[in-house]
């Protein structure tokens, strides 16, 4: 099944890319700065966070802005991808009713357009790190590993929510609430060390913990993720993709009757 997924992605790569470009163009069209917003938006967000946590609220964590952003940027990618892809089938419903087109291109294109945004947002992060005189660790070179885990995990979740939303439109609202709960449940704005050890097992049930962990290790701590961490992140990614794609594939032929 995963091989079928890879084959379809390759087969429809031009269409997926064109749809992803369309999403990006539409997002930044009609603004004077256009595509620059993809860089400016995270840069300004970082500026605000750095000011708030660097001067107003001081945490015991050294260089809290970098600590936070190392996980906040991948999290933003994840939540934005879901917000876009949950509507990707329903939003293209009129098209599905008229042209026979592989359904998987729509959620995948939503994720791809957000991957572009995410990669661009790493540039202002690098700039900020340099400006703050925080070390730019060599472990950045390991980022492709947690990225792969994150992208696979996000694709799986996108397939799942895009499918369920076709049948129950409530899902697009539920996703918003789920995401905000998930955000606080994941150690993004805090460290797991702040949580009493007896509760750690609950937090360890959260797959996103493993998916996001590698980013903080590489960017903030300058540590190479352990083999165990990499394997866990990849396993969560693959499990999510396999589950999400299986459900999507099972129902994709009936989408046209419900959109």
């Amino acid at each position, binding site marked *: 099944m995963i091989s079928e997924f890879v084959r379809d992605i390759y087969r429809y790569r*031009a269409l997926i890319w064109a749809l992803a470009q369309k999403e990006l163009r539409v997002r930044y069209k009609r603004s004077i700065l256009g595509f620059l917003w993809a860089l400016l938006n995270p840069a300004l967000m970082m500026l605000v966070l750095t000011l708030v946590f660097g001067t107003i609220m001081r945490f015991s964590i050294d260089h809290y802005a970098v600590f936070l952003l190392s996980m906040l940027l991948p999290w933003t990618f994840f939540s934005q991808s879901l917000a876009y892809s949950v509507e990707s089938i329903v939003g293209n419903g009129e098209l599905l009713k*008229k042209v*026979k087109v592989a359904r998987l291109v729509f959620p995948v294109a939503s994720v791809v357009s957000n991957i572009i945004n995410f990669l661009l947002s790493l540039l202002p992060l690098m700039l900020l790190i340099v400006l703050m005189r925080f070390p730019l660790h060599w472990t950045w070179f390991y980022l492709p590993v947690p990225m792969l885990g994150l992208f696979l995990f996000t694709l799986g979740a996108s397939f799942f929510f895009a499918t369920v939303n076709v049948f*129950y439109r409530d899902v697009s609202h539920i996703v918003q609430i789920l995401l905000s709960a998930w955000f606080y449940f994941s150690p993004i704005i805090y460290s797991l060390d702040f949580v009493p050890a007896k509760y750690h097992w609950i937090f360890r049930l959260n797959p996103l913990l493993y998916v996001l962990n590698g980013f903080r290790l590489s960017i903030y701590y300058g540590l190479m993720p352990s083999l165990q961490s990499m394997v866990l992140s990849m396993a969560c990614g693959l499990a999510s993709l396999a589950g999400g794609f299986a459900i999507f594939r099972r129902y994709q*032929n009936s989408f046209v*009757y419900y959109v």
Partner: protein
Amino acid sequence: MSQHPYPIQFEDVVQRFRVIQERHDTLREAFARFRQRRTTYHEFEAVKHVSFQISKGEVVGIIGRNGSGKSTILKLVAGVYAPTSGRVQVHGSIAPLIELGAGFHHELTGRENILLNGLLLGLSKRQVQEREARIIEFAELGEFIDSPIKQYSSGMYMRLAFSVATEVDPDILIVDEILSVGDGGFREKCLDRIRQFRNSGKTILMVSHDMTTMSTFCNRLLLIHHGQLLEEGDPARVVHRYGELLANPQAAMAY
């Protein structure tokens, strides 16, 4: 190009839809429905046991009243629907003209839409690029090609959509009620393009309410009424039968 003698074959095709009476679009309603174990939809047969085959190079028109099932048949041919029962076999590539411009995005320019729409219709990126100049020329868009299509007039929009769909150069062309729009000059140009298709031996399936066009253009007509194939054959005869059907108040009542 496909060499199959019958590019389109329908065998006892039934297309049934669930028509939701009480919308249970939300989880709460679905839950309530589940608890009460009642179904809130009835089934509607849009196409009832229809069989026909279309030979290679034929131009076939489907006529019938609104809601008779014509568009459903076109969508079955285009592969948008899978039949509830029976068999639909299609051999060869298809460019559907079911509602021109499906997949156009208003914020994108004409040129960007050509690429997106071409890819959606199954072309490769290179194939689209090879055809781009011809598409733009046929659509008579001039410098507007690099403006967002939300600024286009409906005529320009139509011309671009028609131009993309026919440049796909499919084995089977599906034409759904598009000849009624556009000004006389462009309509003639579209008909010319469809004639070229016909002369190069491609198969065309069209739907229109314009009986003059249908009877001069098509080799054969199918008359669909309430999802059933009522009559097929010589255009003049089928159009006559359709006229009788329209004139007959009982048939109108039945609808």
